């Protein structure tokens, strides 16, 4: 890796984003619009005795989930474009290393995800009165790490798509099972054993658990840090797998 090349690559990806005003606007506005929807869905629901309000429980998880799906989609399309327009092949004939490129994407879109998570969290706390025991900073941190995980998975999955039609279909493949099994709909402890086992190997389960820890506890807990470490590890693992899909030579 070369820091100058990594910085230039990160800057280049952010510059591309800056020229695409509509995508920028969508990145900023979309989670807020979706949160608004969630707010009005649950605003009149009674709060179960002895439990957090339904909106608090659901919105907290959505703060982690929205950047995840959006960054996954943006990254897999961006990387697919690198592959199909020939820029990837060209980059690999230059002194740039594969990790410069992948970490460049991780940093650039991770940053975009962090900004997105910050805006969405600010809206959730100050417009919709989201109530958590722990701090908003931890929520943003977990959501940002989640966004980096999504970027890494997007980089990896783009290798298996030849067209943008195929690439977008990886979104339900990657995101929906993780959302269903993360503990939002059925607590993980109450699932059938095999479902729990599947849930245990899906990284999003851990970011959801980390967010729930922030919801319940004033101070960051050991479980939360462990979960965050697992999600970060999964992101690094996906980046390494993505590196293996980048071939300098092809047929």
């Amino acid at each position, binding site marked *: 890796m070369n820091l100058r090349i990594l910085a230039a690559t990160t800057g280049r990806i952010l*510059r591309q984003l800056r020229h695409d005003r509509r995508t920028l606007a969508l990145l900023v506005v979309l989670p807020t619009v979706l949160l608004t929807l969630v707010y009005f869905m649950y605003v009149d629901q009674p709060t179960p005795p002895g439990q957090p309000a339904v909106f608090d429980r659901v919105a907290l998880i959505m703060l982690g989930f929205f950047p995840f799906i959006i960054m996954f989609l943006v990254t897999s399309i961006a990387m697919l474009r690198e592959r199909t*327009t020939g*820029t990837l092949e*060209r980059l690999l004939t230059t002194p*740039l290393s594969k990790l410069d490129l992948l970490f460049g994407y991780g940093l650039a879109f991770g940053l975009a995800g962090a900004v997105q998570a910050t805006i969405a969290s600010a809206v959730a706390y100050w417009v919709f009165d989201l109530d958590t025991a722990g701090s908003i900073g931890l929520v943003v941190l977990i959501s940002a790490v989640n966004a980096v995980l999504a970027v890494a998975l997007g980089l990896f999955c783009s290798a298996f798509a030849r067209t943008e039609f195929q690439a977008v279909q990886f979104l339900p493949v990657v995101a929906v099972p993780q959302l269903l099994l993360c503990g939002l709909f059925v607590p993980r402890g109450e699932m059938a054993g095999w479902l729990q086992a599947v849930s245990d190997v899906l990284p999003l389960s851990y970011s959801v658990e980390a967010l729930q820890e922030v919801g319940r506890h004033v101070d960051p807990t050991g479980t939360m840090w462990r979960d965050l470490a697992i999600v970060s590890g999964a992101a690094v693992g996906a980046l390494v797998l993505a590196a293996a899909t980048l071939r*300098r030579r*092809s047929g």
Partner: protein
Amino acid sequence: MEDAVVVRDLVVDRGRRRVLQSISCTVPRGTVTGLLGPSGSGKTTLMRAVVGVQTVTSGTVTVLGRPAGAAELRRRVGYLTQAPSVYADLTVRENARYFAVLHGRGHAEADRAVADVGLADAGGQLVGTLSGGQRSRASLACALVGDPELVILDEPTVGQDPVLRADLWARFHEMAAAGTTLLVSSHVMDEAARCDRLLLVREGRLIADDTPDAVRAATGVDDLEQAFLRLIRANEAGREPAGRERA
């Protein structure tokens, strides 16, 4: 002086099709070598093998004394792909500056590379809004920005107006005079006359490897297009390929 590129018995299969059938040729240093042949003849595959991005079946490709694709060559070889591979959502200048950093160069070199391909006035324009010819020149600027020792250009003058084409060829010769080696593909025969040496490829075989004058002399016609036609017919009749002896 050793040749910049030495290709020995290169065979490339793509799927079940044999794209290059045992090609051997050399590219001398400090020259402009033209790679001529019809579309689908294997020009791009041969260039990709020299850059080191092509999986080869057998044979060797040595570039600047190293096996093609060696990590060290990535800073010494510049490659222009046939389809312009630049970022459509960046400006010309931003593209050139990015590729400049990859090659360890700065903004000044990037801006000069943009000016050298005649895009100084369009530097602030998004590549996606350029015409086809401008876009391919933006791509060319990114290939030349690192001031590489060997430049592989796949059809760099397609879609350029005649004046610009003449300018680009003049620039290629300036670079060669300064010691750069250029391998330039084209399917336009009038460009063949501008090259120091010619490689003519057809259906994956090399049918000529010589200077334009020697090709003219060997075939007895002045027009290179006619000369190539004769070479192709002679080749199809099963005779030995014309051109210089190869070791």
